[in-house]
């Protein structure tokens, strides 16, 4: 019992550390690497504010994907928004006492939890049925989707089938977050769910999942189109005179 708690606690801290460290490293490298030239895909906004709006429209609405392929867009948007609400729903394990808005989130969160694996299955189906996506897909692409599918699946099992004791789970997670340890629940479904999430966290910074922070650094999207109005300087090339 105590042994199990130590193992899972260490795993949680390890995964969280890898995640935070990995993401910060990536962000630092991206931020430090210069953009020597102006390369926004035009037509592009002419101000930095406009460029920020453009990036947000990509992040929140997947605007380019919408123009590109409506079916992929649909699957992608549903999947990501469901994922977001599922994550938000999990905030309640870290908050005490529960704020009022959290209650409202719970309902959306449950719906999102049901939608999420469906969306994942849809994306998997698309990947395996279109000859072009079959050609470009590799183990890593199936791995990410499968992992998330099982995370969602075990989560739903706890909600609708197993129903382990929530107070124990909250105690454990809240304990981890506040360094106020309590015993890990021994429910096997929970343990699997928890382990898979830790794998996802640790996997995140070292895989294509870095698209989440990466998109903010994409020069074709985040640069303003103003090279004539404002001289863009290449930090590694000397000025000509």
């Amino acid at each position, binding site marked *: 019992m105590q042994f199990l708690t130590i193992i899972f606690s260490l795993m949680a801290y390890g995964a969280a550390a890898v995640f935070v460290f990995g993401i910060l490293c*990536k962000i630092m*490298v*991206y931020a430090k*690497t*210069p*953009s*020597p*030239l*102006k*390369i926004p*895909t*035009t*037509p*592009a*906004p*002419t101000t930095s504010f406009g460029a920020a709006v453009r990036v947000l429209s*990509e992040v929140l609405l*997947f605007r*380019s*994907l919408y*123009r*590109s*392929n409506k079916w*992929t867009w649909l699957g*992608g948007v549903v999947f990501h928004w469901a994922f977001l609400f599922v994550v938000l729903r999990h905030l309640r394990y870290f908050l005490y006492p529960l704020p009022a808005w959290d209650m409202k989130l719970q309902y959306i969160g449950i719906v999102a939890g049901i939608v999420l694996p469906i969306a994942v299955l849809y994306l998997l189906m*698309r*990947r395996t049925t*279109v*000859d*072009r*996506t079959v*050609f*470009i*897909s*590799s*183990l*890593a*692409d199936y791995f990410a989707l499968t992992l998330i599918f099982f995370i969602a699946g075990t989560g739903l099992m706890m909600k609708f089938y197993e129903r382990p004791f929530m107070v124990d789970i909250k105690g454990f997670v809240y304990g981890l977050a506040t360094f106020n340890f309590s015993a890990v629940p021994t429910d096997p479904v929970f343990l699997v769910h928890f382990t898979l999430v830790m794998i996802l966290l640790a996997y995140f910074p*070292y*895989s*294509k999942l*870095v*698209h989440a922070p*990466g*998109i903010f*650094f*994409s*020069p*074709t*999207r985040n640069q303003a*189109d103003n*090279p*004539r109005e404002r*001289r*863009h*300087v*290449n930090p*590694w*090339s000397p000025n*000509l005179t």
Partner: protein
Amino acid sequence: MAKVKVEVPELTGEITIPGLKEDAAAAVKSHNAPAKDMTDLGFPTELVPDWKEKAVAKFAELLKKYRSLKVYMDICVKCGACTDKCHFYLSTKDPRNMPVARAELLRKVYRRYFTTAGKVLGKLAEAEDLTKEVLEEWYTYFYQCTECRRCSLFCPYGIDTAEITMAAREMMDTVGLGAKYPLQTINKAITIGNNLGMPGPAIRSTLDFMEEDVKEQTGVPVKFPMDVKGADVLLITPSADFFATPHVESLAGYAKVFHQAGISWTLSSYASEAGNFGMFNGNYEHMQKIASRIKVAINELKPKRLVHGECGHAWRVAYSFWNTLIGPFDSLDPKYPAPQHICEFTYDLINRGALKLDKTANDDFVVTFHDSCNVARASRMGNSPGGQFEIPRAIIRATCNKFVDMHPDTIREKTFCCGAGGGLLADEIIDLRIKGVMPRMQAYKAVKDSHGANFFALICAICKAQFTKVFPYYGYEMEEVGGVHQLVSRAIVLGGKEGI
């Protein structure tokens, strides 16, 4: 020259997404660059013994210098949105011409040498050693990309395969694997001052000839000045405008516009090229060297304004990069954008009523307009986004009565490349060029059938060369191809009211 076997796609007026045909374009290869050009440009003449280490070292350097490359190596999720967007995939059916698969050729090597997972897990993490076979694949498929950025437009993260192609070519050049056409062109531009390798006197004599020609046709002494100090405008234009057909017709158009506006202008024999193939092969130094001739010309001729002729990739370099490469342009008059596109210049004059245009001069034509990819997706005209689409169309509408746009999915920012940009305008790959232009030809055929389109208006020197070459293969007359300023040249009424 040996006849190359070509296969012309069938024209149906529609663009369909084909099924995969693996290795369909695997045998398409640009010729290698001659030793002389490699040496001149500072590259080894053949594959060096330690090519692998050198290539990986170059890769490391580029990853540190270009955020685009670094981020784009990491973040592709293989969503597949770009897979049906490249004209080379649509026409060759070769899956490695899908943008994501093209990029993957570099990415798998990136994983092997620059990611922990790739170093440890190897193939399992889609990482691959840089071998001779991989290098061959690079040479094949990174010279089947025109760097047109259509994929970047449609990618949810804006992943720009052009950036990846440029990096790959620079790595290959560094280890001694260069392609003849782009590198020879770069060498000529650096050493002689233009892509055609024409010395100043040769240019002067064609300008003289043009002066006579225009005089004969119109009775008006329109000048084609060169190396005139203190002229208001320095015009930088692709050297093809001096010699090639239909390019010269547009040059006549520019000259008539300057003449009629009463604005003094000059060409430069030293900076006799707008084109900048340095960009295509991803070498910053070459790009800057080529552009620096323009800086020298500005310092010497002391113009007030810098105007740029009809050329797609050249306008990208001019509009987006010149200020960085050779700016700031402190000596120029800040009232005008530097550089200014000739279309912006002419459009401005039309708006102010400074030009008299007789549309009936172009009544033989039903005109359609091909948005050059580099203008459409990598630059701008005018003050607001999308001006690069409106301004040339406005000029066309002002110079002729019948204009029709091609299918909306093939124009403006969604335009299809001509299939010969990015250093692919080489004879030996004519079959690839004929295929690459297929989506564009389908769209042209559709407006031909529906509206009788018979004039294909362009604002790019490479586009002009490519379309005049491939039109006949598709059964169309090369005379249907022309510049926007060719229409201006025909419609403009000389004499009478002069100046502004």
